[in-house]
């Protein structure tokens, strides 16, 4: 049976894991054995797309084309993009729909960018498991809203993966820990990732993982610590230089290295080299300075922690374990903050970079029927509701309601002969509709009747992925009505179709690029070897042979400078054939020499 994989699609790094009989296992990159795939995608001129480590290395030279934290943009509209981010990347200026990055002459949406990361992980998994992989569980921050979840699901679909379940990251981490320790009781998961913060409180009992409440901030993460630290070294440069995107990208990379160093040592240096302009900038920083610098960022995690305890109806001292997840929880100051809130040190038995992926792998195993002893009961992170008279937000499903959750609401018409009812669905905790996040607008057709006579029953269902769907039924006829959905910041079905077609083209493109690169490397090897042989064994050539080989070499060189890998392969074959008799004679001669020298030694 085909295996279901678990994917941690992170802001900074992504991983893929699978559940084996002896527990979850992270799958690695076939070529290097790497466990983490940097969540970086670079769109190069000529259409080549580079993913992972190489894409991240390209960022300083291609600041607008190499996208490093695409997760921050999932499910957003152009108007939600911060000023900082607008300086960091180029966006298509548009009023509606999903935000689009302007890379070269292309416009790409966050789900398309994420799909490249997922496709690479799919390749890793297919190689490791030795067969096709088309089904996955993908993790998302618990505090992701409906649009962000839908965008993640879209990314999976574009990558050729059926997303069977979106699992909340802290919940996945709890699964990984629970499997490990068979715990019972109340635990908290503090998850400070690259770009998002989640805090969840769960009750564990007899294999059931029941999320009591969750809270967080989808715009708070380790990236923010790096950005703050980068400013320190940028301050050493003249403003016009410090403002350059390529310099800023380098400063962020230097800041990240310094942050990691400060987890183990009391002081370090943020070192920024700009060789092409012959400049350097260095700033010494102590752990104490760093903590002072980022105090307000880390402190922003306190209010969500308090709120989650309140919502869960649990006192801090009743929490038996606090699990730390996300690379940023390696920062000692963050650890102290956790200990201060919960009155106990955080548990870090499992690598905080891998724990979410391992949990996703377990959930994949649960879905395929491999772990019937475990069950996850998660919640919707933000209240869902509709806009009612006067722009008021009317809650239909409260935050922290266990999912799946459903609610029915009856609608009628306000004027005579009205032929449709408009429903505006939003998500958030604020009183006014305008202050919450718009998810979608629905237009529900209705029979033309006097005002107030039609009765429309609308069912809102939040599925186990935390994604909303809407169905409507005419209560007079009992007929189900189709609901036309217009996602506020998502992709429409037509956009998805078009992207799917394009992604198939691009998948072919990507394969072609890979083949081309491999063929060129092979051409270089055979060309170098031929030249070497001709130089040392020239006398072995028979008349006319030199010319034939020379022509084949010229043919391969010409093909190599072209873009067609099939032509290169053909030219490689032609050169091999042309050199074959020569190579055999060279071999014979070498052998004779070797034998001759042996005889001399034996004598």
């Amino acid at each position: 049976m085909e295996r279901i994989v678990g994917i941690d699609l992170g802001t900074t790094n992504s991983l893929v894991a699978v559940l084996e009989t002896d527990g979850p296992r992270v799958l690695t990159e076939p070529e290097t054995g790497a466990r983490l795939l940097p969540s970086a995608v670079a769109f190069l001129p000529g259409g080549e797309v580079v993913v992972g480590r190489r894409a991240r290395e390209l960022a300083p030279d291609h600041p607008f084309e190499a996208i490093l934290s695409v997760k921050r943009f999932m499910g957003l509209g152009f108007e939600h993009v911060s000023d900082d981010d607008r300086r960091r990347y180029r966006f298509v200026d548009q009023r509606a729909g999903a935000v689009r990055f302007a890379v070269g002459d292309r416009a790409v949406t966050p789900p398309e960018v994420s799909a490249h990361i997922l496709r690479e992980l799919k390749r890793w998994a297919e190689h490791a498991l030795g067969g096709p992989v088309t089904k996955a569980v993908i993790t998302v921050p618990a505090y992701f809203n409906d649009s962000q979840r839908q965008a993640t699901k879209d990314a999976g679909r574009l990558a050729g993966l059926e997303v069977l379940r979106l699992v909340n990251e802290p919940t996945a981490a709890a699964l990984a820990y629970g499997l490990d320790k068979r715990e019972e009781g109340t635990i908290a998961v503090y998850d400070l990732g690259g770009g998002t913060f989640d805090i969840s409180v769960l009750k564990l009992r007899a294999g059931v993982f029941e999320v009591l409440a969750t809270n967080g901030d989808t715009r708070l993460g380790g990236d923010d610590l790096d950005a703050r630290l980068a400013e320190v070294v940028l301050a050493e440069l003249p403003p016009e230089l410090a403002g350059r995107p390529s310099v800023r990208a380098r400063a962020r990379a230097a800041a990240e290295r310094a942050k990691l160093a400060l987890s183990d040592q009391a002081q370090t240096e943020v070192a920024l080299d700009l060789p092409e302009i012959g400049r350097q900038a260095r700033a010494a920083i102590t752990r104490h300075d760093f903590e002072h610098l980022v105090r307000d960022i880390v402190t922003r995690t306190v209010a969500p922690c308090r709120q989650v305890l309140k919502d869960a109806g649990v006192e801090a001292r009743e929490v038996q374990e606090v699990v730390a997840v996300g690379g940023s929880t390696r920062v000692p100051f963050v650890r102290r903050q956790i200990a201060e809130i919960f009155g106990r040190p955080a548990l870090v038995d499992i690598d905080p970079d891998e724990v979410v992926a391992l949990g996703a792998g377990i959930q994949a195993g649960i879905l395929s029927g491999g772990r019937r002893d475990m069950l996850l009961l998660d919640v919707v992170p933000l209240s869902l509701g509709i806009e009612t008279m006067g722009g008021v937000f009317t809650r239909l499903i409260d935050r922290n309601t266990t999912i799946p959750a459903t609610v029915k609401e009856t609608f009628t018409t306000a004027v005579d002969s009205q032929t449709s009812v408009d429903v505006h669905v939003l998500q958030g905790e604020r009183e006014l509709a305008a202050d919450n996040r718009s998810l979608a607008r629905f237009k529900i057709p209705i029979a033309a009747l006097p005002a107030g006579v039609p009765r429309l029953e609308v069912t809102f269902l939040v599925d186990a992925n935390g994604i909303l769907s809407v169905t409507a039924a005419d209560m007079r006829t009992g007929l189900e009505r189709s609901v036309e959905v217009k996602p506020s910041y998502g992709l429409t079905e037509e956009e998805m179709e078009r992207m799917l077609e394009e992604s198939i083209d691009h998948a072919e493109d990507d394969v072609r690029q890979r083949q081309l690169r491999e063929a060129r490397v092979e051409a270089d090897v055979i060309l170098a070897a031929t030249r070497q042989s001709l130089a040392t064994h020239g006398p072995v050539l028979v008349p006319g042979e030199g010319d034939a080989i020379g022509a084949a070499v010229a043919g391969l060189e010409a093909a190599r400078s072209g873009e067609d890998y099939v032509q290169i392969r053909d030219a490689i074959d032609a050169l091999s054939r042309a050199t074959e008799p020569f190579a055999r004679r060279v071999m014979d001669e070498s052998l004779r020499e070797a034998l001759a020298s042996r005889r001399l030694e034996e004598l």
Partner: protein
Amino acid sequence: MDGNEQERQCWRCGSTNIRGGPVCPHCEAPQPLPPGSDLFTVLGLPRKLVLDTDDLERRYHAGARALHPDRHQTAEPRARELSERASAVLNRAYRTLRDPVARGRYWLELHGSPLHVDNKEVPAALAADVFETQEQLEDLRTSPTPERHAEVRRVRDALAARLRGLKDDLSGLYAGANGDGLLGELKRRLSEIAYLRTLLGDIDSALGDECGADSRH
């Protein structure tokens, strides 16, 4: 009292005698809710206000293990849809019955006498306190002083204690519940609780004690 004694047939495997269980005992397909179900019957409980919370949790977990979409991921669309709908009802049943206040309100609904949240009428027992508190809040808003702040905080604590007391008293009412006076008494107490909750919410926002639930704004 297991809700539905009448013989039903599994829509998938056709086996009869599946009783009122959430899934077919033979093929594990989720079943549509029997007609006349309510939040008590979906958990296999008798319609009674008094219940054992440990038993409630056990029933909920057993139901969730059988019905949750995770268990029917590889099944046909109808099974997946039924699993989703039935899980949603089961979740609501547990959340409602677990909390004595929500259980009481559901009881009123079930008996055709729902409590309206937007009840503008102040419960008689609270009238004096409400009037005084509103005045204190108004004073705090117009000219906040540390003394007024401390005073409102004291009032808040007293009202919170009263709310706790009212909630604790519910179990006594539920244990002895029987007879005609129950609905009226239940409604009176629940409207007091609802009113106190609103009042405490007002006080908290006046004191600025709100934890930012949605810190993204």
